[in-house]
């Protein structure tokens, strides 16, 4: 069910550069379970888009099917949304992006949607470098169908009723790195301070940006023995860095030891400033990021933070060489060769 929220709000709510409050970025009331990690991610999306002062209607939000895919209804109510087909958000979003390169594309998916039924489309979207933010709300379980293991469930993780998963998990972060994603991060729905800047960085990134966000399912996967519970993730979370996203180069107020700070300036002028928490991790080296990930996974850590960013990403429109004008705005004159050209074609076919 969707409910209309009252639009009244406190007159002193802070506004962004567009004069909009956070309330202007909200959507319908969530119908997910109380305490669901996905609601925290929706709130982080609202916060990030508001902080970036993006006009809500310039965002297109797309999803597949599942609990996570329901969430686009719960944020950015002034944006067009598309709750498509299970596992097929990547193709629908790819098409949308081809039609209008001027909008900002946000794809929300889950671990069933992206790692099981939609793994193929996930992979090919990463390969093509569609300019978008791809968030997987990863709870390791099928929520809407009540508690089956998903493809990201860790081997040995226990279901609520006691069954133990014996299949190897799919690590979407490793896959995204392997397949050429140009912004790759992992976060935790319970760590808003980490998540909001990562979403901001992803939204300003002009290529395919992937965030695997672990998001515990309070109904089916938050018990003892689960590796996607709030407690387990908090205990094993190892952040590699802390990110801040700026548009104006702000002075660095704290003092850092050399090498402790990494700055990446993106195409749109935004600056990603990362304070290193793990010295050996270099977020601008894809191969090193993969190695780091593999090593620390073996140590039982859940590595979070901005794992890799390419400051010079290329996207699908660049590869296809499309015109700057969005294709959906081209008129008859730009598209139809006309009768004279057709006569030439006819002549060559006689």
């Amino acid at each position, binding site marked *: *069910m*969707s409910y209309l929220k009252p639009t009244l709000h406190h007159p002193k709510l802070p506004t962004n550069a567009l004069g909009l409050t956070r309330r202007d970025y909200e959507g319908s009331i969530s119908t997910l379970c109380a305490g669901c990690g996905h609601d925290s991610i929706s709130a982080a999306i609202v916060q990030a888009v508001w902080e970036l002062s993006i006009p*809500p*209607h*310039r965002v*297109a939000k*797309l999803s597949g099917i599942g609990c996570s895919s329901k969430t*686009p*209804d719960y944020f950015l*109510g*002034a*944006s*067009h*949304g*598309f*709750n*498509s*087909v299970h596992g*097929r958000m*990547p*193709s*629908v*979003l*790819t*098409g*949308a*992006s*081809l*039609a*209008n390169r*001027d*909008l900002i594309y946000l794809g929300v998916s889950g671990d069933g949607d992206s790692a099981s039924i939609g793994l*193929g*489309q996930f*992979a*090919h979207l990463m390969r093509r470098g569609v300019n978008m933010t791809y968030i997987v709300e990863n709870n390791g379980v099928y929520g809407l169908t009540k508690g089956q293991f998903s493809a990201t469930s860790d081997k040995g993780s226990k279901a609520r009723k006691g069954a133990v998963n014996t299949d190897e998990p799919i690590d979407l972060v490793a896959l995204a790195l392997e397949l050429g994603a140009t912004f790759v991060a992992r976060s935790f729905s319970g760590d808003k301070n980490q998540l909001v800047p990562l979403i901001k960085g992803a939204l300003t990134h002009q290529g395919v940006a992937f965030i695997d966000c672990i998001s515990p399912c309070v109904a089916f996967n938050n018990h003892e023995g689960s590796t996607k519970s709030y407690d387990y993730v908090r205990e094993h979370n190892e952040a590699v860095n802390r990110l801040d996203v700026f548009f104006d180069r702000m002075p660095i107020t704290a003092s850092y030891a050399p090498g402790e700070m990494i700055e990446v300036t993106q195409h749109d002028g935004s600056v990603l400033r990362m304070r290193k928490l793990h010295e050996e991790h270099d977020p601008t080296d894809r191969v090193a990021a993969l190695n780091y990930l593999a090593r620390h996974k073996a140590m039982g850590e859940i590595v979070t933070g901005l794992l890799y960013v390419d400051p010079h990403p290329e996207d*699908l*429109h660049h590869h*296809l*060489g*499309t*015109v*700057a004008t969005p*294709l*959906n*705005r*081209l008129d*008859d004159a*730009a*598209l*139809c*060769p*006309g*009768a004279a*050209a*057709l006569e030439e*074609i*006819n002549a060559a*076919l*006689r």
Partner: protein
Amino acid sequence: MLPLKATNDFVVKFANVNGSGSASANQLFAKAILRMGIPIASRNIFPSNIQGLPTWFEVRVSGEGHLGRRGGVDMAVAMNPQTWDRDVAEIEPGGYLVYDSTKPLPASRFRDDITVLGVPLTELCNARYADARQRQLFKNIMYVGALSSLLGIDPAVVERLLAEQYRGKEKLAASNREAFHIGRDWAAAHLAPIGLRLERADKVGNRIYVDGNSAAALGAVYGGATVCAWYPITPSTSLAEAFERYCRRFRTDPDQRKRYAIVQAEDELASLGIVIGASWNGARAFTATSGPGISLMQEFVGLSYFAEIPAVIFDVQRAGPSTGMPTRTQQSDILAAAYASHGDTKHVLLLPEDPRECFDFGAAAFDLADRLQTTVFVMLDLDIGMNDWLCEPFAWDDAKRMDRGKVMTAEMLEAGATFGRYLDVDGDGIPYRTYPGTHPTKGAFFTRGTSRDRFAKYTEHGPAYVDNMQRLLRKFETAKTLVPAPIERKASRATPYGVIYYGSTSAAMREALVGLEEDGIHLDAMRIRAFPFHDDVGRFIAAHETVFVVEQNRDAQLRTLITTECGIDPARLVPILHYDGTPITARFIRAAIGRHASALDVVPLRRTVP
């Protein structure tokens, strides 16, 4: 047995090995006849293979202008030892066999009721060329030369075609010319004139010779498609490739940037997903596929229907089921397309008869999809799609503009228009839509494959669902008035019998109607060009006691669709079905209808036994 005698009315069949370079020589032969003003119908019969397997090219010369496949072979050009026996056996009694006589063959390999014309092609080639590939390629041009002498093709026409084909490559043109004349001169010197002759005529007019896939792709360019997502599958691949070719020519900016986007997707699911995403966002988008692709796209087709997002699917039909017979033609996706997806769905189908209609319908499909906000299938088949057909030239009215359908703009929203995404404001069942990003505060909605009310709000309320499904039916009624109407052709006298046909059957049907009249069987004919069916279809059936429905599938799919959708007693529709993977022939239709007609007690005035 007397040798066959015919002028401008015979069938030549070339038996080749694929990958041997025969295709362009055969094309040259076909085009030369056309340039002499004589209509032809040509068909490739080819395997799903790149090199080494048998392939055939059939040219029906028809001064009368019959463009369907005739059946039977009057002259075989047997260049493939592997299929020799079959090729020789197929020749009509009194027919001709042209073969490479370099190596002597025992008499047992021939027939005594045909005229055997040996040309030592390999010997001639080896004498002239040292390079193995040249020996192979020029052998093909040489037999065209020999045929030109035997049948009376004007060498000037061939020389002109070679000059056009190799414009700017004079060396190639010259060597082809030479090979052509070696073959021609040898035949002139060594072979006696035969009974099959070509005589200049004026029966081609300004018609063009083109394949349906290219024509449909060109239609998509003229129809304003900007996004094409596809997955390679025979026999539709050349449609997407032609779209790319035409776009490169017509839609490239001076700085080389493209006013189009083509994605070769990972599968057919992604292809249609991309199309739906692009259309949702206001671009015109299409995919091209065949039966197996249609199977994979089912879920997305339902989404397009229910979420009301335009999509154009070119289905170049081939034989099925499963992944069967990729290089053979059929009209066997009619039901799969008409009722694609789960739940209650039905879809618009356009049924072009030849490349000219592939172009027209290919362009119109985008207006229809936008106007109706749903999937439109353009149902080609391999016979139309991959063969060159003689058809009316393409035509375009420069005053024509794209009909983007009911799209609410920022200005309309600003002026206070009520926007309900699924609200039927005009009574035609078609609601307004908005493109993403239209207005800062108005017109946004959440697109769902699940149920919603008239204002796109989620609901599982039964009456709201029914309300919406009823509106979708009203929209389908509206579609009837927008799709191409059927075309009727009256018999020369009043008759209680009718025949319904569609698509690539048309050429054979037209010819069969002439023959059936000769047999004393008179039929009013209706060519159906689209689904949903125009009201005229029901009227036509009601006006006749019995109506034959001629199709190229096993299960009489269009007949099923007619009986279901028009509430017709199936007993009144007699199926005439051809589905062996070869294009239907006039001979087949004439014989099949003739058999039924005598069973139905039609007393022929004059029966001619062919």
